[in-house]
């Protein structure tokens, strides 16, 4: 990657993500939001995390490459759900998730 290419990519991608991260605050701060919008914002965490989980677990590329690659992440997330509900600990979830995922990958 040439320096020019690198600087263009760095400049554009850093600027765009900083705008996305700060613009809503700059625009909305100090204003009272309509009740409808506030209701919608309450749904942001569940909707965003559900979308992030789905994005990680569902992959057309893995489905095309076979049943096991498709099932593996789904199976590995089952114990993570159990651990999350029982312990509410991010650390425990990461450890269990990675260990189970690695073990399942190894037996395949």
């Amino acid at each position: 990657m040439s320096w020019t290419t690198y600087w263009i990519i760095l400049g554009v991608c850093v600027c765009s993500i900083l705008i996305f991260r700060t613009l809503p605050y700059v625009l909305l701060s100090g204003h009272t939001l309509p009740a409808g919008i506030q209701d919608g914002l309450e749904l942001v965490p569940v909707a965003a995390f559900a979308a992030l989980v789905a994005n990680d677990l569902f992959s057309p590329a893995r489905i095309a490459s076979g049943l096991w690659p498709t099932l593996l992440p789904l199976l590995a997330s089952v114990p993570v759900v159990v651990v999350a509900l029982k312990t509410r600990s991010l650390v425990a979830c990461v450890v269990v998730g990675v260990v189970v995922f690695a073990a399942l990958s190894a037996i395949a």
Partner: protein
Amino acid sequence: MQRTASHNADVAVVIKVALPVALGYVPLGLAAGIMSAKVGMDAFQTFLLGFLMYSGSGQFMIANLSMAGAGVFSVCVSTSMVSARQMLYASAFTRFFDTVPKPLSLWFFATVTDESFGVNLMRFQSGRWGPWRATGVNVTCQLSWALSTLVGALIGEAFDLPTTVASFAMTSIFVCLLMMQRFSVDKVVAAASAVLGVILCKTFGPSDMAILVGAVFGIVVGMLYRSRVEVDRGVEGRGEGR
């Protein structure tokens, strides 16, 4: 003296809260650094990108597309589309920053990620959380990420980390953060719709936008469901899900 004591307590709390996310960033940051080295970035370039952009999905996207031979324009557009979901997080945090000085607020908002959004928002909602602590959590995670990408770039191709295993660390964090939410019927509807939105978007639509499209779809369907329930019950049910 007391001030020092409370300051130390703050630092301890920040580190305790940030630790799971910061540790999760290590394997993934290493992997991102290794991939960045593969597409020809040196250690400094990788670190700078990791520190300033501070986005795992974004950095992987840049490396993947560059490896596939995509042009500069397409790399920039795709990566920016992946970043667009950050607007949702910023909107959700804004009400906690109405009285916070602007420089601190901007520092906080500039360093929000998927994972730190989760751990900070839950604590803001419980009331015992402030802008300094929240920013401390963000910056701790940011340093962990940027340094991990730096080390990854230095190791380079000498060491091949299984990216799929490393990225499942983040998947586990998202699963955990989802499970820790307080669910009511409207939230279940929103989550299920978000999943459906992601699947449809990745199957038929622009997959770079899947997270944002899915999340917005979930929010809209959840709100529609709420308004229908309110119509059925009269106005009373409003705000119950809190």
